[in-house]
């Protein structure tokens, strides 16, 4: 069910379980959902940082990911936030059938930015671009615990 919140973070629109969600930094179900996952997969770091800081970090993460997604929307066909290897994972499906070096380089820049962003610091975040191979190329990499799809259109 769509939810509008007081302090919008660029009015991001994501799919969760097939439903569109507008999320913001404050009181946002999506932020809370992701923060809860972080408290499970990074229990020690999340406990040390505190719930409030984790939620702030998740909101900051959304902003950064959204900037990257919008800047690279011509190069990808889908973007998911999920979890893998006890970390959050930005999973994108590449538009090109073949290797896209520019996309790869752009993801490394995003990785560096995330690693150096003090606000995102409590979170472990990885990124992965996969080819559009098969009917649902993302299925292998999506966690049952967290599957949020960023609408590109």
């Amino acid at each position, binding site marked *: 069910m769509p939810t509008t919140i007081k302090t919008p973070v660029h009015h991001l629109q994501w799919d969760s379980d097939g439903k569109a969600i507008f999320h913001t930094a404050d009181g946002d179900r999506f932020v809370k959902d992701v923060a809860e996952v972080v408290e499970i997969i990074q229990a020690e770091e999340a406990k040390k940082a505190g719930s409030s800081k984790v939620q702030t970090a998740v909101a900051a993460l959304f902003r950064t990911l959204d900037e990257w997604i919008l800047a690279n929307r011509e190069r990808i066909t889908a973007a998911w936030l999920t979890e893998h*290897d*006890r*970390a959050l994972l930005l999973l994108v499906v590449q538009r090109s*059938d*073949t*290797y896209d070096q520019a996309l*790869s*380089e752009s*993801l*490394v820049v995003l*990785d*560096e930015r995330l*690693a*150096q962003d003090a606000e995102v610091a409590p979170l*472990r975040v*990885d990124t*992965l*671009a*996969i*080819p559009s*191979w*098969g009917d649902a*190329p993302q*299925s*292998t*990499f999506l966690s049952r615990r967290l599957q949020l799809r960023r609408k590109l259109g």
Partner: protein
Amino acid sequence: MVAIAFYEALHLVEAVAASDPGFQQDRAVTHMERREFIYQHDRFKLIRLAYKELHRASLIARYMEGGSRATDHFFAAPNLHQLVVVGWLGTIRRWAASELKVPEIANPAGAAPAKG
């Protein structure tokens, strides 16, 4: 081939980290911890793209449906060896040789082109 290449890269990263007393306390255990380590230390800046691509190729080959074929297709099969072994792994070998102050790193994974 890509999984072997990735694990060779991983061990080269570990070897460089182990050679530096300053890194001893931060040694990585999991892939994610190793990744964090690589992004936290400028010494690894030159290999970030190559390491990421080797990891990605190994994940695609091992875990995607039809992974081996997907890898061949995605990374343009005729150039796979060139891209993976000569390109990405070669970058990490040269970097590791420089960091470890040895003339060169041996070439066990790249001796001959292989599929998958």
